[in-house]
């Protein structure tokens, strides 16, 4: 980025009692960007958002908007607005008064207030509900009111805390598109906090993946998916086959399946994990393949099918995705080949100790960790190893 960032977070560290919620987080957000803070619950993403809004005070570090130090300002003086997870609509005020509240507090004149409220209500499609109370609205409508209330002051930065989590699945999908449209239309910078990787991937220009208060990777969705920086990112974003092994000159040597070819920057002999996305797993005739397995299940998903293949020597089955329906059935013997593979270093001493214990326990085995798209599980949180 050549221009100065809109938001600069520098070395922010936050502590609650004995737990460190944020370890020296630094990141820049550009003007007009749709930015996502992604991570499992307890990763510190909400703490960071609330620090920007002014409801938490970091122990150290700087947060600047347009070069101005935010941490010196009380929440009501900051040029940012927030959409709360609970929406926090004022129950005793009509929709109109809720939306106009910020302008009123700012001392905007009556006629300007009126026209700006009407304008923003039109943008979110709420004109007909102006006189209703929040309790008389549906979940989706409340969300729109909260959004209208947060953008009416045209903040430099709009913070959204899990904006879609209170909505049911169908409404959520359409609101994702709508948020994206709105961001373009009003030309604001959005910072969204979410634990839902699909949501972050589909909306954001760039995503910061947080875990245990540390920034794991900051990149575009495409980059996160294709070139994860850590094993955690690889498993958290999308579905992945993870093969733990040892780096070699040509790839990763994985016990049980042999070499997985890939380019990487690790030194030979380093503990490494090969990351193979299910669509990069190719199926072949069993007889002519060096790596063979048995199909344990197939899942038809409409546009694609996922095939789960058990390979002797691997703890978890390999997942492969093919277009459309498949004729392969449970019990078939198939050959497996890997197309593109990414390589990440296996967490060594640098990472937190308790995670290492886990990683070592199944170091020799492969495991498949999947996000929302997993055909088997419907649990939204892909990882359980998160500490609160």
């Amino acid at each position, binding site marked *: 980025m050549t221009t100065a960032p809109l938001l600069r977070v520098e070395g922010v560290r936050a502590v609650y009692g004995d737990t460190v919620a944020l370890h020296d987080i630094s990141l820049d957000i550009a003007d007009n960007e749709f930015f996502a803070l992604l991570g499992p619950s307890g990763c510190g993403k909400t703490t960071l958002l609330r620090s920007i809004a002014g409801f938490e005070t970091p122990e150290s570090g700087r947060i600047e908007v347009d070069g101005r130090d935010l941490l010196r300002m009380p929440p*009501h003086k900051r040029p940012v607005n927030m959409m709360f997870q609970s929406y926090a609509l*004022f*129950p*005793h005020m009509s929709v109109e008064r809720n939306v106009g*509240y*910020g302008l009123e507090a700012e001392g905007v004149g009556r006629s300007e207030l009126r026209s700006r409220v009407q304008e923003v209500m039109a943008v979110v499609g709420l004109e007909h509900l102006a006189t209703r109370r929040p*309790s008389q609205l549906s979940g989706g409508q409340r969300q729109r009111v909260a959004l209208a209330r947060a953008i009416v002051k045209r903040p430099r930065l709009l913070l959204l805390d899990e904006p879609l989590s209170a909505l049911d699945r169908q409404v959520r999908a359409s609101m994702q598109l709508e948020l994206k449209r709105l961001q373009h239309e009003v030309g604001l910078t959005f910072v969204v906090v979410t634990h839902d990787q699909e949501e972050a991937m589909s909306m954001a220009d760039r995503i910061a993946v947080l875990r245990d208060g540390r920034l794991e990777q900051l990149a575009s969705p495409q980059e996160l998916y294709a070139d994860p920086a850590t094993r955690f990112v690889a498993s958290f974003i999308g579905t992945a086959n993870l093969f733990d092994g040892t780096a070699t000159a040509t790839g990763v040597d994985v016990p049980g399946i042999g070499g997985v070819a890939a380019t990487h920057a690790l030194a030979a002999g380093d503990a490494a994990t090969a990351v193979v996305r299910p669509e990069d797993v190719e199926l072949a005739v069993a007889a002519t393949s060096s790596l063979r397995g048995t199909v344990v299940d197939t899942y038809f998903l409409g546009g694609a099918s996922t095939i789960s293949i058990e390979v002797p020597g691997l703890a978890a089955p390999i997942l492969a995705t093919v277009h459309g329906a498949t004729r392969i059935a449970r019990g078939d013997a198939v050959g497996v080949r890997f197309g593109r593979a990414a390589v990440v270093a296996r967490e060594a001493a640098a990472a937190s100790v308790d995670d290492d214990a886990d990683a070592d326990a199944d170091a020799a085995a492969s495991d498949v960790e999947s996000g929302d798209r997993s055909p088997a599980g419907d649990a939204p949180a892909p990882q359980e190893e998160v500490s609160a």
Partner: protein
Amino acid sequence: MADATVNPSTTAMRELEPAARPRAVRKPRGILVPLWLGYAFLYLPILVVVIMSFNDSENLFVWRGFSLRWYPELFQNEQMMQGLVNTLIVATGATAIATVLGTLLAYGIQHYTRGGFVRAFAIAPAILPDLLLGIGLLTLFSLLSISLGLHSVILAHAVFATAFVTAIVLARMATLDPSLEEASRDLGAGPVRTFMRVTLPQLAPGIVAGALLAFTLSLDEFVIAFFTTAPTQPTLPIVIYSMVRFGVTPEVNALASLLLLVSIVTVIAAQRLTRLTGTPK
């Protein structure tokens, strides 16, 4: 519990619509006997007072026939009327102090303290023995050389009434979404504006309920008032007590019935308002 299947998110609504529960099993009638006995035990003494207030007889304990004559006569009894006026002055003053103080106390406890210790201390005067409060206040007043009179009763009643208001306002506060205040701050309103425009309106049902309760409690408080008032300015309960010693006239029944009516109305009003607490409307 019959409502095991009710979704937790509708808990607030549940108490508003008891009729919605299915009538599953016919319960045996016999179970109702202890219920009615319990109610009889609670309300028979009150019922007797109300019935006897319509008694035509001069004698408090002999029924001679229906009459309304004690009601007008009550208002001719100067001693009682003066007591009533004193009591109303005390109740109003104590309620005013307690409502303001209790609300601020609850706000402070909620926002600036953690844990139940401070909270328990704020509410304790509500359950302390009246005798203790009475003696303590009397001692304090004489130490500070504050003269006794209605003003000292007002202060004394404000002590325990504040505790009640605090408890009720705190309960209301616990049901509120803490992000409401944050949202107000976020939208550019300072702390004072946030309190006046968001916090206070949200607390209003709790504050009113607390005030009504404080008022009714002060209305019939005897022990503390006995300790802290001047003999020349007795409140109504003290007037009645001294009359009882010299023989009760039937106006007392009429007065008690009227006070009962006032209390019932206030308690129902307070309860309705407290119940609003649970609903987001």
